[in-house]
């Protein structure tokens, strides 16, 4: 390194730190635990959120059950966007949330998807035909989309027939991965994972009718850690607002 | 069956090139002698097949162990050889007995000519059979190593400086065993050493190596006496004389040794030995003084009548080496140039060689 550059480095660092400090004077950060299936929508919402409110959204993605354990053990999350409604309700009952802050931010849609174009014809025909070796679902004990998938299979009387073909991803993202890499010919994923700008982006799918399974209500809640963070409240409000709900709908959720 | 070892080796090692063409007797002890780095261990390892020279022809008696021209190479474990390493290298996970039986077990019954009792008795290790290798002294370990190699009933015994890792006392303990080996077993031995003492004591034939090349190859007594070799020019120059015990004086404890093909004799103070027994002695060049007239009133026991053969410069300016012939026995005398000029020494001159000290090699 050029010796003459040396004295400039501490100065440059000071300027950089000063800049970041300056920008965060007005705006806050909010730590959000986000259900894996909501990854794409929240990323789209986050940039608008920051533009409109100046607050920064810092998201961690994962399984709802895992987040529950982490939150119970002191994880620094301030807002929780779950993949179900039972987990936020449980946290509320156990006093880990800001009372009254729980609301449904999205209602999930289940889709049967294959990475292969034309494998699924928009109906349940391919599923019933049972010509596949592996059917991917999310772990029903841990993910509501997985539970919903088992409900659909039960409704179609396929439970026993496909029992030996089921492979479980630990979360909806992994269930998707098994199908996208071709290891499972098809699988039950969240519509939001394959839906963009109003249609299925690639492969082929069957959008499962709501009546075939218990509704996948996805609830959000402000956690105790976010009680005094104005950014947390701002996010909760923003999610209910028109911009956010439009984005959410465009990913195949309904409200 | 031909009893001979034919050896042609050529190989380039980093900083060193091996280039040998040797015919060695297929019996007795042949010493490979030279300074460190002269290639003697490499030569031995190539004969064994532990290293593979790029151009090689190795024939032991009737077996061709390697012929690089025909791409023929007999793997080590198929060669009927015994190898004794410098450090005994006994298997630490086996007892002495199990070590000894390791090779024995692996040769067919009909090929076994040395048995366990014989080998342990020969090397004096019968009382050590149940011990573990780490409980033995260096000398004991080496004796076990030798016995172990013998028990494969080899057609050729290769020894790589077996005494180098031992102190003088241990060396002295083992040398008699090696001499017994030589006397009692019929197996030819190739013995690598940088100790002239060991060579003088054990070898029948000597190969002098220097920087990967053969300087000389011949019977020990003849080769040691050659003036054209560096052997003769150093301070350790010596000759080896093979004679026969002709008399023993109990009173004075003096042994009389008859020189081969001569009426002359040497007398040396020594323990009693049987008459007629062959005996090897070493006479150092610096222990021989020359005189034109024999002295009768002197404590020197041995005075041989000899003829001056030739002369060469020694390894320093003050001395010269004189080669003499005493009825066919070669002698070397290391004297000062001054004395040479004083005596007016010249080839063919008859004089007396007075020997101050004779070392008995037994």
């Amino acid at each position: 390194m050029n010796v003459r550059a040396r004295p400039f480095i501490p100065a440059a660092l000071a300027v950089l730190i000063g800049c970041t400090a300056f920008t965060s004077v007005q705006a806050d950060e909010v730590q959000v635990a986000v259900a894996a299936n909501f990854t794409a929508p929240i990323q789209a919402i986050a940039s608008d959120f920051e533009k409109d409110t100046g607050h920064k959204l810092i998201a961690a993605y994962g399984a709802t059950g895992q987040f529950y354990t982490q939150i119970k053990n002191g994880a620094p999350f301030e807002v929780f966007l779950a993949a179900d409604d039972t987990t936020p309700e449980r946290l509320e009952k156990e006093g880990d949330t800001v009372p009254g802050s729980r609301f449904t931010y999205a209602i999930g849609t289940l889709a049967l998807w294959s990475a292969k174009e034309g494998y699924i014809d928009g109906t349940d025909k391919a599923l019933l035909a049972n010509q596949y070796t592996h059917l991917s679902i999310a772990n029903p004990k841990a993910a509501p989309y997985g539970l919903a998938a088992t409900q659909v299979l039960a409704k179609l009387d396929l439970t026993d027939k496909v029992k030996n073909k089921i492979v479980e991803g630990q979360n909806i993202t992994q269930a998707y991965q098994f199908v996208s890499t071709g290891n499972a010919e098809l699988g039950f994923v969240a519509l939001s994972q394959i839906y963009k700008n109003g249609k299925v982006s690639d492969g082929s799918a069957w959008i499962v009718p709501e009546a075939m399974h218990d509704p996948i209500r996805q609830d959000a809640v402000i956690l105790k850690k976010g009680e005094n963070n104005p950014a947390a409240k701002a996010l909760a409000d923003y999610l209910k607002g028109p911009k956010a709900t439009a984005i959410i709908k465009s990913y195949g959720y309904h409200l | 069956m031909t009893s001979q070892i034919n050896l042609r080796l050529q190989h380039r090692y980093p900083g060193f090139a091996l280039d040998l063409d040797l015919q060695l007797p297929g019996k007795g002890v042949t010493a490979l002698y030279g300074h460190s780095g002269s290639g003697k261990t490499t030569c031995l390892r190539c004969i064994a097949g532990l290293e593979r020279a790029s151009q090689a022809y190795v024939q032991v008696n009737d077996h061709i162990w390697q012929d690089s021209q025909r791409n023929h190479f007999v793997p080590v474990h198929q060669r009927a050889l015994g190898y004794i390493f410098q450090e005994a290298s006994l298997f630490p996970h086996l007892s002495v007995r199990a070590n000894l039986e390791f090779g024995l077990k692996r040769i067919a019954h009909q090929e076994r000519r040395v048995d366990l009792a014989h080998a342990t008795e020969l090397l004096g290790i019968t009382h050590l059979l149940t011990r573990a290798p780490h409980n033995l002294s260096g000398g004991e370990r080496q004796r076990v190593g030798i016995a172990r190699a013998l028990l494969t009933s080899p057609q050729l015994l290769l020894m790589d400086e077996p005494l180098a890792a031992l102190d003088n006392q241990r060396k002295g303990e083992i040398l008699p065993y090696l001499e017994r080996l030589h006397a009692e077993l019929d197996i030819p031995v190739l013995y690598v050493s940088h100790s002239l003492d060991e060579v003088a004591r054990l070898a029948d034939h000597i190969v002098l190596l220097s920087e990967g090349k053969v300087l000389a190859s011949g019977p020990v007594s003849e080769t040691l006496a050659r003036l054209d070799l560096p052997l003769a020019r150093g301070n350790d120059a010596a000759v080896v004389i093979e004679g026969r015990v002709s008399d023993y004086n109990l009173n004075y404890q003096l042994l009389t040794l008859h020189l081969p093909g001569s009426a002359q004799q040497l007398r040396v103070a020594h323990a009693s030995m049987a008459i007629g027994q062959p005996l090897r002695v070493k006479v150092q060049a610096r222990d021989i003084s020359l005189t034109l007239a024999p002295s009768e009133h002197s404590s020197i026991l041995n005075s041989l009548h000899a003829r001056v053969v030739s002369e060469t410069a020694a390894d320093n300016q003050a001395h010269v080496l004189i080669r003499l012939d005493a009825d066919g026995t070669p002698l070397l005398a290391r004297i000062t140039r001054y004395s040479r000029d004083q005596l007016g020494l010249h080839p063919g001159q008859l004089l007396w060689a007075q020997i101050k000290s004779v070392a008995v090699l037994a």
Partner: protein
Amino acid sequence: MPLTSADFAAIWLTLQLASLTTLILLLVGTPIALWLAHTRSRLRGPIGAIVALPLVLPPTVIGFYLLLAMGPNGYVGQLTQYLGLGTLTFSFAGLVIGSVIYSMPFVVQPLQNAFTAIGPRPLEVAATLRANPWDTFFSVIVPLARPGFITASILGFAHTVGEFGVVLMIGGNIPEKTRVVSVQIYDHVEALEYAQAHWLAGAMVVFSFLVLLALYSSRKSQTSWS
């Protein structure tokens, strides 16, 4: 006993996976370790580095690339499909392969160290005593390298029992085929079944400890010669 039959199935599966993986690694790793210990070839460095890769690569990375490779579009997947075996993902065989790759350095390196420590001399001695290479291996190398074999087995076994990332990526959590203990514990935690998670994890800790205790005690009492 709060351990369900599903838990026992997971334990049994894990033991089978670890045992089979360790056995395969001893068979495959021994020649590799011998070669690495004795060769003077220039390939020694690169091959040694490849063997050591799983030490530094995160298991999920290994798992991810296995997922791709074993899938119908990957090299391995295309080979297995050509041979009529379908794909290896979601199968016990696939897990074994993943575990073998993942635990390889843990078996090869202790063996390599043991073989190097023996050095070339005992092998030369054995050859001069009429032992051919196989004979030398079994009568000299193996006894002298015994502590290395034990260490390699312990490490390979324990490492496979603890494997999670690779299994997670390519297992598919199928009961009795790919649902190993580490995943089962994870599932219990996910489903908030803490009591079962405690019991299962506790059982594995006790078991692993007993195995290690037995093996380490046998190492100490080994005499230097027999």
